[in-house]
């Protein structure tokens, strides 16, 4: 009998585990070291085969595979059959190991100027991580588990999952997580080698940059999805699952900056290594929080404790191994160079400290409910009031320093030209705050500071972009910082200048909000492929001219039965008009919740710009690495970038 593709996929998964074992064992003995690269390449290709087999099972609706039967349906659109592979627990873990395998393949093939032993050690660490996850897949959540007899039809026509924002959010995030795993593997290899210095930083920085850019994109995509799909009018809810992605992002941001110091100035060696380990541990913690259901709220009901325990053991085991290597080997990592407190690296240290403080705040707020319940059994929730009060001041402080940092010289203290250079951003920031206070009557101190910080950072970043001798790396920095300024602007403006109305209207009636006239023109039933809905038509006018028509819906899905709210959203300038239809009140009136959210799109445009800055900086780092290889003499001298 010819084995089915699903069986071959299952076999490929076992073989991938065997090759991961070879990768893990290769650095242990000189005779095996040559096997590391071929094993990593084979490992990557086997995982591609396994993943392709699973995708095939979804495409042909092979319901003898339990995963397909529970998560797919013959009537599902093609795109969502493909994305359906990872829209469930087992499949998403399969995607995780696939991306990890591809990263191993890349590490085996890209030029790595630190020698074959170093590469073998890096691949060895990757092999250990891959082995752990493959064991988790094969023993605790096998994606290729079969059903006999196969059911005639699948169960998974879940409407909420048929959404592009949700479909592409996990892979983006996983690319970021896996990039941090590679940085971790490189850090462990460097510790074992005792070679932590500029050359290592140069080899590692592209991975960190890539990971950071993908994490940024993934988080932004998730935020955007929550904004337009959930119909709550917000874009960040400080939900544990959001925090689970934010924590590795904060660590990756700190790492991105400290590794630059290590590369240029050969300082912060141990700190950078710790950050690489912490970034990995936090991305594992994120996976654990999401996958174990430990911290989720209403639906975290029937969680399988075995799976959670397995993931926790992986998280703790791998991190403990890295920390043990660090504890044993860190003394071998010689102390790095020193520098003045007001030099660029001095400010980067402050940046790192602030990011660590933010990380600690998010970490405490996320795990505190668990701790308290373990302590005295009280159930609490920690939400936006806590997080906003604690994080916003730190973020604003960070923004101010971000405007200064790129203008400082390495090693030396601040120069005289600095004050002159910061005059323009300072002036414009003050103007921005005054304009908000005078023209729009904004009063909150933090809000005014938010506008000022955004203006300050934006102007400083544009100045950086306009300086002579622009390199790819500096352009990347400037764009990413500009992105942060835009996100701060969007967050501040959409919060402070937001107008909100909650009304109960009959068809034909209207209301006024922030200079707009909104009329409820109609409420009519509407039918989709697997849902029926009540759709309101809201005509929005400004100064007598029509601006937009919103069509919020209240939907009822048939299979499975489920009600959802579809917000009606129209972009107006860089902001949104956002309307939600509520229930009828029984006397012919309809509830409408309506928001005007100025500049809210800047939040996601800013995130896009950050990721684009990361990609530019990546280009810079790669080119730099190539130049360095061609002219080894140039690498011996430190590369100070003078302020003037």
């Amino acid at each position: 009998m010819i084995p089915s593709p699903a069986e071959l996929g299952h076999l490929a998964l076992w073989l991938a585990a065997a090759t991961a074992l070879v990768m893990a064992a290769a650095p242990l003995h000189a005779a095996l070291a040559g096997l590391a690269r071929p094993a990593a390449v084979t490992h990557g290709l086997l995982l591609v085969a396994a993943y392709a087999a699973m995708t095939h099972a979804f495409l042909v609706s092979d319901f003898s595979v339990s995963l397909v039967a529970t998560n797919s349906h013959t009537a599902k659109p093609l795109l969502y059959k493909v994305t359906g592979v990872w829209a469930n627990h087992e499949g998403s873990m399969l995607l995780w190991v696939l991306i990890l395998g591809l990263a191993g393949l890349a590490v085996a093939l890209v030029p790595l100027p630190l020698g074959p032993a170093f590469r073998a050690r890096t691949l060895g660490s990757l092999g250990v991580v891959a082995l752990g996850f493959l064991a988790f897949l094969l023993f605790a959540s096998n994606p290729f588990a079969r059903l006999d007899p196969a059911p005639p039809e699948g169960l998974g026509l879940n409407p909420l999952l048929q959404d592009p924002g949700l479909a592409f959010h996990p892979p983006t995030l996983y690319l970021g997580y896996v990039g941090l795993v590679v940085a971790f593997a490189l850090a462990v290899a460097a510790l074992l080698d005792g070679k932590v210095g500029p050359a290592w930083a140069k080899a590692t920085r592209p991975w960190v940059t890539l990971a950071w850019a993908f994490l940024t994109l993934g988080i932004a995509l998730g935020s955007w999805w929550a904004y337009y799909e959930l119909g709550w009018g917000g874009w960040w809810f400080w939900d544990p699952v959001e925090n689970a992605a934010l924590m590795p992002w904060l660590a990756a941001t700190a790492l991105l900056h400290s590794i630059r110091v290590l590369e240029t100035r050969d300082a912060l060696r141990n700190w950078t290594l710790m950050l690489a380990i912490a970034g990995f541990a936090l991305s594992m913690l994120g996976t654990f929080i999401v996958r174990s259901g430990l911290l989720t709220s209403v639906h975290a009901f029937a969680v399988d404790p075995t799976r959670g325990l397995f993931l926790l053991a992986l998280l703790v085991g791998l991190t403990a191994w890295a920390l043990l290597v660090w504890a044993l080997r860190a003394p071998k990592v010689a102390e790095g160079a020193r520098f003045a407190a007001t030099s660029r690296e001095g400010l980067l240290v402050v940046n790192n400290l602030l990011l660590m403080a933010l990380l600690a705040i998010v970490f405490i707020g996320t795990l505190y409910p668990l701790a308290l319940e373990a302590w005295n059994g009280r159930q609490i929730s920690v939400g936006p009031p806590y997080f906003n009060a604690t994080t916003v001041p730190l973020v604003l402080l960070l923004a101010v320093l971000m405007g200064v940092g790129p203008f400082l010289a390495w090693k030396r203290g601040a120069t005289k030209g600095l004050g002159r250079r910061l005059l323009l951003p300072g002036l414009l920031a003050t103007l921005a705050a005054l304009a908000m206070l005078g023209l729009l009557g904004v009063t909150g101190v933090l809000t005014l500071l938010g506008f000022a910080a955004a203006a300050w950072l934006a102007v400083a970043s544009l100045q950086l972009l306009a300086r002579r001798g622009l390199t790819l790396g500096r352009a990347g920095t400037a764009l990413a910082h500009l992105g942060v300024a835009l996100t701060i602007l969007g967050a501040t403006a959409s919060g402070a200048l937001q107008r909100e109305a909650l009304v109960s209207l009959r068809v034909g009636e209207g209301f006024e909000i922030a200079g707009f006239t909104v009329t409820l023109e109609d409420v009519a039933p509407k039918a989709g492929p697997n849902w029926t809905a009540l759709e309101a038509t809201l005509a929005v006018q400004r100064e007598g001219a029509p601006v937009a028509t919103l069509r919020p819906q209240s939907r009822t899905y048939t299979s499975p039965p489920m009600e959802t709210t579809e917000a009606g959203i129209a972009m107006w300038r860089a902001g949104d008009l956002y309307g939600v239809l509520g229930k009828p009140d029984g006397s012919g009136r309809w509830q409408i919740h309506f928001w005007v959210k100025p500049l809210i799109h800047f939040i996601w445009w800013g995130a896009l710009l950050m990721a684009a800055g990361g990609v530019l900086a990546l280009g810079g780092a790669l080119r730099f690495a190539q130049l360095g290889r061609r002219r080894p003499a140039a690498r011996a001298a430190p590369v100070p970038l003078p302020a003037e």
Partner: protein
Amino acid sequence: MSPARLLPLLALAALGLFLAANLGRPQQATIRSAMVGKPVPAFALPGLGDRPGLASTDLGGGEGPVLVNFFASWCLPCRVEAPQLKALADAGIPIHGIALRDSPEDIRAFLARHGDPFRRIGLDRDGQAAIAFGSSGVPETFLVDGRGVIRLQHQGEIRPEQVAEILREARRWR
């Protein structure tokens, strides 16, 4: 090696232990019934066709403990739980069912397809019995002892590894 270098490792170990200790009982805002430890609320539900219905007077007649299982044909986890209910019934514990917001035809189809472990079945068309029990969803299972006192509330489907524990609890209240 200076002992300070082991601090991160110790911090990790503490975090790991803490998370592991919490894994067993995931915390969430599920609503526990205040009826546990109290007598069964008074209710009387019609049966399915000619089968007898279920009333509070059927519970706690002096015999051993019984399980009261809230279920529905439209509920996916109830299908998942069917084999476990059968195992419990086979182990000798009487199980009564209360079908929530369901039609007799759908219930019959459900029982024909997924098995019928129930001694009595009550039809709770408007969810009044569920509210009286303090139940907030299906499936949900209550253990009622021989004196008619609710001893245990199990929210969500009974998973295979939980059957033994429910059996143990049932024996405890014999």
